[in-house]
């Protein structure tokens, strides 16, 4: 339906946006269609469908950005916003010619089964199956919430450099939350799976298995003791996810924070910022991952960027504006939550590359320590590098063996210190998905890491 807006009309809007001057203008059109199914209390509670339609217009003059958005996607509606934005940008008037050319991405989407081609009944059946699987584990399972969600996001980006891009993103997500209770104690277990994929996700993933894992974690935590407190050797499993690397260095390598001197990694390109065992990559081109992109939200193709190679800082993640400030190309990391937001540098799929060690050997090397089997969310202060991440499944390590489960631990450390400290890196690799928040914008990402050993990290628990 949006293709009604011909390139010629977008050219007119862009010219209007630069009508009062400016270095760069861009129109971002979006149509997002979503479906969500929720099951709780042993029944299908909600089925919600939605359509969001809107356009964002941006004009850059020097370092300054003017931004506006609207739901009125007629040519007249867009011209009105373009005029408001042009006035706010206050550049110097000049003559512009814009000729839009369609750009193809070298990265191709691999979606096989579009959500609209699957009946709602089939989606409901999956949700019900997961609900049953979790409840059948044990009668201490008191509540199960299962959520299915699909999103089809069509975007059109046109800018005054002549770039014109059309892209369709399809994302599918499945979440299970289990509450278990016993003798007055309540604990929870959470599992989520998702990707830049369609319904074919469920050919690879068993939702019943996912539900059982969530239920088993909730039950395990019922018998877990409170986590200990203080500094200790920490081993993080490959399957634990990548929250640690996302927080400990990912955010600090986003070019906007670097340029504003808000990152401990600013000015350190070419320097050793991590142990030589550590290589960190952001890769939007991985097929089907939750953070994968054919194009970013500025019309640049998704790409693979090596950020840290064998401990040496190689590059940051850039969007158009931050790249322009340094006279270089964007790394395809310009992302936004929706047409309401201006793009900023964001991660896609970020990971520590696998190393050489056998994960079993890493655990065996620890006499007394903490084993992280699954991570939850995290947060970082990029200015001083301090970060935290939540452990949703943790154990003690005693004499080289993983022993009893512990609950309620957050691990806290300093990014640059921890990266230098990593002294063993496993040959395994595990991904986890999440929604990353920055400047009030949430975007889908995935993170991964191999099993790693950190000799000295603070575990936030309780003293006996």
């Amino acid at each position, binding site marked *: 339906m949006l293709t009604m807006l011909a390139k010629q009309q977008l050219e007119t809007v862009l010219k209007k946006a630069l009508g009062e001057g400016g270095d760069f203008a861009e129109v971002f059109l979006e149509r997002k269609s979503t479906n969500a199914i929720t099951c709780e209390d042993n029944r299908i509670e909600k089925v919600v469908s939605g359509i969001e339609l809107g356009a964002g217009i941006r004009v850059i003059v020097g370092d*300054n950005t003017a931004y506006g958005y609207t739901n009125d996607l007629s040519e007249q509606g867009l011209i009105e916003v373009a005029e408001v934005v042009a006035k706010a940008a206050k550049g110097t008037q000049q003559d512009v010619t814009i000729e839009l050319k369609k750009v193809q991405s070298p990265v191709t989407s691999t979606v096989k089964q579009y959500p609209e081609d699957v009946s709602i009944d089939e989606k409901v059946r999956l949700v019900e199956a997961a609900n049953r699987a979790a409840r059948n584990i044990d009668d201490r399972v008191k509540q199960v919430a299962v959520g299915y969600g699909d999103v089809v996001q069509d975007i059109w980006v046109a800018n005054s450099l002549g770039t014109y891009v059309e892209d369709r993103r399809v994302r599918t997500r499945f979440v299970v939350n289990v509450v278990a209770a016993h003798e007055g104690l309540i604990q929870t277990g959470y599992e989520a799976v998702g990707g830049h994929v369609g319904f074919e996700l469920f050919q690879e993933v068993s939702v019943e298995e996912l539900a059982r894992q969530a239920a088993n974690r909730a039950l395990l935590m019922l018998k877990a003791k409170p986590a200990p*407190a203080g500094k200790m050797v920490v081993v993080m499993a490959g399957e634990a996810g990548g929250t640690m690397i996302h927080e400990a260095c990912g955010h600090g390598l986003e070019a906007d924070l670097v340029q504003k001197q*808000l990152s401990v990694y600013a000015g350190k390109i070419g320097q050793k910022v991590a142990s030589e065992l550590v290589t960190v990559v952001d890769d939007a081109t991985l097929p089907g991952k939750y953070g994968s992109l054919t194009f970013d939200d500025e019309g640049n193709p998704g790409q693979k960027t090596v950020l840290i190679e064998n401990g040496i800082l190689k590059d940051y993640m850039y969007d158009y504006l931050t790249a322009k400030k340094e006279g270089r190309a964007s790394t395809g990391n310009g992302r936004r939550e929706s047409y309401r937001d201006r793009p900023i540098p964001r991660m896609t799929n970020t990971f520590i590359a696998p190393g050489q060690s056998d994960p079993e050997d890493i655990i065996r090397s620890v006499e007394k320590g903490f084993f992280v089997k699954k991570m939850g969310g995290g947060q970082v*202060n990029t200015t001083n590098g301090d970060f935290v991440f939540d452990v949703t499944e943790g154990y003690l390590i005693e004499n080289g063996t993983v022993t009893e489960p512990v609950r309620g631990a957050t691990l806290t450390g300093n990014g640059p210190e921890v990266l230098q400290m990593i002294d063993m890196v496993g040959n395994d690799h595990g991904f986890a998905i999440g929604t990353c928040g920055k400047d009030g914008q949430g975007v889908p990402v995935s993170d991964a890491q191999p099993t790693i050993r950190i000799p000295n990290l603070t575990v*936030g628990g309780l*003293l006996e």
Partner: protein
Amino acid sequence: MEDYGILAKKLVEEATAKGAHQAEVYISKGKELTIEVSKGQVETLKNAEEHGLGIRVFVDQKMGYAYTSDFSPTALTTAVERAIANADKTFADSFNVLPKPVLDHRELDIYDPGIEKTSVDEKIQMALQIEKAAKEYDPRVKIIESCTYQDSQYQVTLASSEGIVTGYHGAYCGCFAYVVAEEEGDAQTGFGLQFELKIADLDPVKVGREAARKAVRMLGAKNINTQKAPVVFDPYVATNFLGVLAPALSAEAVQKGKSLFAGKLGTQVCSPLISIIDDGALPGAIMSAPFDGEGVKTGRTSLIEKGVLKSFLHNSYTAAKEGVTSTGNAVRSFKSTPEVGTTNFFIEAGSVSRDELLSGIDRGFYVTEVMGMHTANPISGDFSVGASGLWIENGKLTKAVRGVAIAGNLMSLFQQVDCVADDLTFFVGRGAPTIRIKEMTISGS
């Protein structure tokens, strides 16, 4: 508003004609302005308008929902039809009913025309004042991450098959700042924030100075040894902890077995010094509105009184299930069904000053920022968060502390509160005074 009232009513009629037994249409329209300045210049100026519509239907007491921000006639009809089709897949529930209209309509003072009247240039000046005040506070304030002025004007329209056709206008505005202080290679951040219903109440200079003060006092922060000690939460940190408690006070969580407070009505659940209130009609407060997301009158609900659990928050569904009246806590956007949520939610102020509260502590930890609060578990109550702040010695704030963690369970935390100060401060829709916890484990080096 009249136009949207007519549209909403028309869609309700379309839905009932197409098979919905009950229908409700919620329309929101908003206008947003954000001005971010840096180095004496406007860095980003965002000016936008948008609208959205959500339709909720009950067919044989089964609920269906759809929303759209495309208001073309075809898109609106599609939304109506999808909502009805979605209802077919959900569970029939006799408590699925729409509320009746509120008869005593009242006006709340929640729309300041001054926000619309103040020019963009004057608002840019306010943002610049924040930055100037932060820089002038101390030469060590070297980097301005952002100094922002923001306002929002909105209009809500609601119509239902039960005879509701109503709406209101509201507006709020705010200033916030994130700054960095630097000294000898050490860089620390600080923030300041203020949101108000009336633009005349904004004090950009105060916001800038507060951000600067918080950044500067964290310079030279160090880790401390793992130990047990009294801990004080400043109003911002106390508000963060209160936020984790919010879901447990919703009747929905109780009915689903997901609340720490289930089965505890009438019992002592917190220290007798703690009283927690939700007030959707609180004068001067950002989240006040004449009615909630499904048209029920808002008001004051005393949830915890002197430590005793008195009540839970309800929407029409949870209230019907329990045979009580909704507390007017159906919270929503056009994209969501009306769910139980908080409005203006706060811990009541105590009677001592902050300094008096601190004076009783020989050695303790004054927490001014927590990291990873979103990882706290509102169902089990377990939390473990990164913390930074100032060390207390002999009742006085001394050196800065960072990189430690504090952990525990929310229930025991609020039971261990042994002093509440008189400095209740709101951070948008939530607020708390400074509170003191008798003893906690601090995980450090």
